[in-house]
């Protein structure tokens, strides 16, 4: 599964994208973030305040309850500020 990070989340984690293989049982966006937080301190720091984080699964915006089973691409990012 490809993970993408944008804006300050990308800067805090230190990469814009990475391939990951979450363990069995990690089947929602929320669980994915909790699993990432256990990997390294930089993830824990980046995801300290998840209320400010938005998610898209396969390029469709969704929420933390969304399933990631079979997802090709999960993007995590702060609220958008275009325009």
């Amino acid at each position, binding site marked *: 599964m490809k993970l*993408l990070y944008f*804006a300050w989340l990308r800067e805090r984690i230190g990469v814009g994208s990475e391939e990951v293989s979450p363990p069995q049982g990690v089947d929602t966006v929320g669980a994915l973030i909790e699993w990432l937080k256990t990997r390294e301190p930089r993830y824990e720091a980046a995801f300290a305040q998840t209320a400010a984080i938005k998610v898209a699964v396969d390029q469709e*915006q969704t929420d933390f309850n969304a399933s990631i089973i079979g997802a090709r691409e999960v993007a995590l*990012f702060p609220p*958008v*500020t*275009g*325009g």
Partner: protein
Amino acid sequence: MAVRVQEEDFDPTTELDALSAGRDDIGALVSFTGLVRGGDVSEMVLEHYPGMTEKALEEIEEEAIKRWPLQGVTIIHRVGPLPPGARIVFVATASRHRAAAFEAAEFLMDFLKTRAPFWKKESTASGARWVDARETDDAAAARWAVE
């Protein structure tokens, strides 16, 4: 109908002419151009999510076409580093009558600001900072909710 995400500048006049060229069924053309504000900002960098950005803009465009009788829509958003005064974003709508064109243009901007995956980073003399999302933008988008 056109959605473009690009580093290059655009020319609003050319874009408006293209919307109405060769047609006589358009009575109203409305456009909005967003610029980089200066002040203490020396540069603005626009980051986006390639692939999803275009998809999100197309969805917003389709939603506008569903809600208003539009003859044409153009959405252009620039990405990359931009100096103060530079054009960032352009939306234009064409319709038979002005009410639809005005309303749809406002709708496009309100939805673009809250739904399209762009992020602004400002450079100032005291360092660079990511622009915070504004609650007023959420409120502006919310007023278009279907009742």
